């Protein structure tokens, strides 16, 4: 099994510059400065069909080509390290074990687009990661991998790490920009898109930590090689955060397009004695899959085709002890708590839905609730500024549709049909 980013997870002290250098660190950058023009880098990345691994799956090379180069304004790179999608913990691993890999990726992207200032917006709770990142930046500056005239190339790059304050919505790229500018994290109306009008009104490229961390491998080998690792149009590997009821939860670096069934097996399978019930394949915002849907390939396009999404690759496994009513309630409570409050359908809808579900969990559900929830849910998504409401809509509708009988049982019997089993497990 080929390991790219995750090879560093097993190397002791890989976060330190000497160790990173020992394992081929900054070689891609050196090669780039000596042999490649910015447009060569962009072409190579386009060939790799590397997609945005933060969740949207947007083609990375394509993203760069939308940036206007001659506006007279600086171009910024903003690194989204505000990993907040429940079920996702890959960026934490990347920054903990391979901060220099991220910095090298940043360097490559900055060189390709002509960027000289980078902001890393890191989740506030990532204390160690924040320290390691700053330490890595210091090391890199000292050895001239960052700063002025990097490796005698004439290229300058400054990297600033900024801590978030705990809002999920600040992982939405335009809310992130607002927050970075010192304002309340409200997603912006689009257009204009950040590529044209982003941070401080300047053209801005926004990338997830993991996406950037694959760039050194693409330059070291080739775009074509990377593309072949994945499935068509979904290049390379990605880090799946597997959690929940599996024997060995953790980060699994696997090709885009690996069957979900295989991924679960790689994680040791469903914990012993239990049966698989449901899988959230791409972070909490993704539509839930039933046990009968695990033949799906875990790439962006295949998951979309069955009405879910690859998202942030946060794979949450639920076995037959999971109560879907409670799971949905917890999910919706999360979105209600994290809705920024701008758009009426999301602000009011997420809260309303979670109050109905709470009532259901408490044994006061009504027969009309399910259809009401389906109706409310269907008008929450697709009507708002950002995708948070869409992310709330997907679990809401999919849980209700795919596990309707469980909701009906809850309403009719005023309790969970799993309660007895649950106590047995405990």
């Amino acid at each position, binding site marked *: 099994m080929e390991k790219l980013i995750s090879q560093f997870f097993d190397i002791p002290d890989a976060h330190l510059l000497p160790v990173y250098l020992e394992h081929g660190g900054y070689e891609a950058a050196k090669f780039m400065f000596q042999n490649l023009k910015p447009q060569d880098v962009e072409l190579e990345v386009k060939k790799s069909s590397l997609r945005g691994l933060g969740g949207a799956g947007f083609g990375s090379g394509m993203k760069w080509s939308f940036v206007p180069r001659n506006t007279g304004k600086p171009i910024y790179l903003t690194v989204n390290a505000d990993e907040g999608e429940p079920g996702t913990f890959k960026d934490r691993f990347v920054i903990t074990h391979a901060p220099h890999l991220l910095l090298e990726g940043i360097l490559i992207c900055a060189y390709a687009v002509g960027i000289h200032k980078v902001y890393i917006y890191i989740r506030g709770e990532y204390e160690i990661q924040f320290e390691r990142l700053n330490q890595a930046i210091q090391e890199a500056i000292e050895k001239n991998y960052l700063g002025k005239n990097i490796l005698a190339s004439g290229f300058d790059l400054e990297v600033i790490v900024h801590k978030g304050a705990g809002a999920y919505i600040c992982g939405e790229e335009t809310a992130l920009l607002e927050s970075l500018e010192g304002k309340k994290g409200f997603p912006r*109306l689009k257009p204009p898109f950040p590529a044209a009008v982003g941070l401080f009104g300047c053209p801005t490229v926004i990338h997830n930590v993991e996406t950037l961390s694959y760039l050194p491998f693409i330059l070291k080998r080739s775009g074509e090689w990377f593309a072949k690792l994945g499935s068509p149009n979904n290049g390379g590997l990605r880090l799946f955060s597997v959690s929940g009821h599996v024997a060995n939860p953790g980060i699994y670096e696997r090709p885009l397009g690996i069957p979900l069934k295989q991924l679960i097996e790689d994680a040791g399978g469903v914990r012993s004695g239990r049966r698989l019930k449901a899988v959230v394949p791409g972070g909490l915002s993704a539509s839930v899959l039933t046990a009968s849907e695990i033949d799906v390939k875990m790439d962006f396009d295949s998951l979309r085709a069955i009405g879910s999404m690859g998202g942030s690759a946060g794979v949450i496994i639920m076995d037959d002890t999971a109560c879907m009513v409670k799971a949905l309630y917890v999910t919706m409570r999360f979105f*209600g708590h*994290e809705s920024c409050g701008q758009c009426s359908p999301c602000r009011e809808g997420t809260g309303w839905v979670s109050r109905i579900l709470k009532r259901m969990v408490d044994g006061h559900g009504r027969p009309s609730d399910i259809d009401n929830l389906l109706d409310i849910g269907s008008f929450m998504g697709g009507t708002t500024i950002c995708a948070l409401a869409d992310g709330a809509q997907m679990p809401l509708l999919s849980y209700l549709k795919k596990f309707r009988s469980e909701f009906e049982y809850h309403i009719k019997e005023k309790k969970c049909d799993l309660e007895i089993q649950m106590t047995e497990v405990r």
Partner: protein
Amino acid sequence: MPTLKIDNQDITVEKGTTVIQAAEKLGFVIPRYCYHPGLSIAGNCRMCLVEVEKMPKLQISCHIQCADGMVVNTETERVKKTRQHVLEFLLVNHPLDCPVCDQSGECWLQDYYMEHGLYESRLDEPKVKKQKAVPIGPTVMLDSERCILCSRCVRFCDEITKTNEFGIFNRGDHSEIGLYPGKELNNKYSGNVVDICPVGALTDIDFRFKCRVWYLRKVDSVCNGCSRGCNITLEVNTERPQHGHGERVMRIKPRYQPEINQWWICDEGRYGYKPIDHGRILEPARRSSGPPEIISWEDAITETVSGFQRFSKRSKEIAILLSPQLSNESLYLAKKLFSEKLGLDQIYLLSPSLEGSQDDFLIQADKNPNRKGAEILGFSEKESRIQELMDLVSSGKLKGLYLFGQDLVSIFTHRNMSEALRKLEFLVFQGTNSNLTSKMCHLILPSASYAETEGTFTNFEGKVQKFSQALLPIGDSRADVEIICQLARKLDFDWPYFNTEDVASEMQKKVPAFQNILASAPAFQEPFEEKVSK
């Protein structure tokens, strides 16, 4: 210039026009809450979603720009259903306390529910509790439960007054508008947030619980608070005197006028209506020594005229003090009578108020609505002229003085004005409100306020604007024009004028500067304005 189709009608618009604006040009008012033509686009209420062909998602018409060949549908089943749901979302946590809410009757939640909602309520959950009846400044009361978080008030204070008092705090359905720490809503334009608040979240402390809005009669007028001449609507209640503590003017609202005040007015103007109902002089009166004695208009006019006849030939002995508060018509007629017919040369212009504050937006230091009009007619208030007048008064040479509302005792506090005035043989006060000086005058002629008459004011830029009569003159007061006409007739002058209209038509012919009266703007560009008013 893109050409597009909205609800099967073709329209060509300027590049950059949004769909909501283009639809308005065609006469369709797409429902909205957060969109306001004078503010930036927030796009948060989602009420103006429309269907655009070839776009899978509904689009907010306040933000999407018209493009060539675009096909927009604003009334499809999908759009209507979505609108209904957006309304339902907005009402999820709304307290529905309409019976005790001042906004009732002009509330966009009520109006849009009747127009686009009409669904059966299925809401059975407890509502989120928020703070209610919080005075957030001297003029505005906040009720967070009623708020739909459209952010109009936030944007107003950020973009128009640039005072940045408001923010949105907390998240999700616990979001609330509020003041930043240490701030209160106390800028010179605070009251506008009440006008632009589409619901009952921000209400006017001054208007609170005075009168139900459906009892109000609305009349176009022009603010007389300064020389800007902001367009206003006087909202009066005359049929139900039991409401509003017997006052007739209940509130003033701004009226859209792109050339002068756009959508806004200042608080000084908004709350400056109190003198219309308070401190008014109600009857003509005579005073010799002791308390004033109420007399008939007939007697008042006769006695005034006899005073003129005593002094007019020795014209140096009498002075007239015109006011820049008077309308163009009143000033024109006063000039005709005092200068042309009576041949007086001591005619001065004196503002009844001192200069006030000024800013770079609407507020002018000159607190008179018609100084420019007076100047056009040849009356100016120069320091030297005022000095001359004051010397005249204190010298004892002057025998008669005819005032138009000025409170000389309060204006010239540094002079022993009451002493000097007491020496005059003939002191006439024609004005609306009593003051220290009116209490010393021999004859008091009560005149109608600007709200009780009609006419034109010329603002400091020379724009001539018409104001209409909203109320009958209080008590036995009469319009200035009418009083001047009566004096002229009593003096047996050839006098072809009977009302303001007669004066206006002649004046406009003779004075070119008064010819172009600024057209009233089409109704305030907000959806419900038309239905409520008139």
